[in-house]
């Protein structure tokens, strides 16, 4: 599928360019803009980004694959990310994670067939003081319990 940035996003990208002395430095921000427009970073997106930033496709692929927040496949409408790192683990994160896996029938990194949910086990999110926690897309849900997590999933269906 061909990919072109919208006019509005091209303007946004120009504002990003103004922040840095090189075009290449805009790469991470431009990838976010692309991901917002296209929902994930396809091969075509990477080609377009490389052209725009005057860098090689390899450089773009290298960055996309290095950082966990760029998706090369379309995630679910609700991307559930559960932290299981130590502070969350000590407060029951694995119960929550296992319950979510069971409830959605998904494994780490999978997306449901209807495209509604994808789930991911993630590292410390900086919410250790309000652990356990999960993210639903960009939103932090803190002081989480298994019950709350399952209710939330029901309410999103």
């Amino acid at each position, binding site marked *: 599928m061909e990919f072109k940035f919208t006019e509005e996003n091209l303007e946004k990208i120009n504002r990003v360019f103004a922040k840095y002395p090189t075009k290449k430095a805009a790469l991470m921000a431009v990838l976010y803009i692309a991901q917002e427009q296209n929902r994930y970073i396809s091969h075509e997106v990477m080609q377009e980004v490389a052209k725009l930033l005057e860098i090689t496709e390899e450089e773009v692929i290298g960055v996309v694959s290095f950082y966990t927040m760029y998706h090369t496949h379309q995630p679910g409408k609700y991307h559930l990310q559960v932290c299981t790192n130590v502070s969350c683990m000590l407060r029951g994160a694995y119960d929550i994670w296992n319950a979510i896996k069971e409830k959605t029938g998904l494994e780490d990194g999978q997306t449901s067939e209807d495209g509604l949910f994808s789930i991911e086990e993630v*590292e410390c999110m900086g919410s250790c003081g309000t652990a356990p926690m999960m993210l639903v897309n960009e939103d932090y849900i803190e002081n989480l319990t298994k019950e709350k997590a399952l209710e939330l999933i029901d309410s999103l269906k």
Partner: protein
Amino acid sequence: MEKIVLPDIENFHELDVYKKHGGYEAIRKALAQTPDEVIDTVKKSGLRGRGGAAFSTGLKWSFMPKTTDKPKYLCVNGDESEPGSFKDRQIFEYNPHQLIEGILIAAYAIGSNNAYVYIRGEYHKWIRLLQKALDDAYAEGLVGEAMKKTYGTNFHVDIFIHKGAGAYICGEESALMESIEGKRGYPRVKPPFPAQNGLWGCPTTINNIETLTNVPAIINKGWEWFAAIGAERHPGTILYGVSGHVNKPGVYELPTGTLLTDIIYNYAGGVPGDKKIKCIIPGGSSMPPLRGDSIEGLRMDAESLKAAGSSIGTAGIMVMDEDTDLVKVLARITRFYYIESCGQCTPCREGTGWMKKILDRMVAGKARSSDIDLVVNVASNIDGNTICALGEAAAWPVMYMIERFRDEFEAVMDNTYVPPIKNKVHSMRQTKITVDRY
């Protein structure tokens, strides 16, 4: 106790309120001095970095070359990805203007016209909050080109936010610079250090969010005032983040040198069910774990923790009660470093994987009798043999957890395990590793 970084003032995050309480006066004061005078004040105050290494902030600034034809840069580290750390986000939310003012002063001191605040990508909300504060400050001419007119100075600095995208390693200073340049976050071999060869090969200083938020107060109230707070060699306050098995987890701003037990029992509400503490990590998961029965009288400052065999790190205090399965905890910690290793150095890339494999085997009850020595050996072969400190961060928890809680690990060994002779320093035994065992 007076709070410096997170004062108890309602709506302090709003520009009007911040200004009403003397906000953006410190930068005026600083601009009336020479950059060297500002550096000297910060040096004398004894302020040390809050990002993990507790290095003297004034001294770091003084490494920046005075004469150079290259631009100079300031990087502000808000990557905050160390497990157990959740303090910088409080500053974005509750005191963004003091951070911005600290950035202005630091930039003036080192002679930089461009500052990048690197914030972890998952902090969408806190990025928005800081951006809002920045926009407000720009709108009033407190930042950027308009500073010249506002403050009647020749100096100006622009502040940009750079959003990360999920990589713990980008908190390491050279990886952070690579990331701002639009590359993978691969740490650089040092030397050269950032003050010589940093962002785009130019002189660069990197400071943590909390570090710089202290600076306006030091300029306003003087270095003598700051130096008198808390521990003599590590003065000021710290945002202690307490998590795990406590009744009131959260961030508490207290002087350096506060008793660890005071923080846990008087501020964080003690341990649920009045259980005993088995293990405590005082500075984020990269720092050596301590035994719960060794924390009586322990003070939270760089020197005291070093003497106790750990480190202040980010002051993220993780508390584990007597029922905690430390084998599982160590396996989880190791998984983190295995996932986050950037893969440049063989000992780190391979070693974290091996350690994870062995520890997972222990958790699964399939440990072999030689596994304790093996995992410690792998760890000690990472320690000191890598480009960046993530190697040590991965090795230390393994080495020290096993040294300090060896009995817990022995308990999960199979029945062929022969306990070593008591009083031997087990952690340093050199079991010969052959790769084909894996």
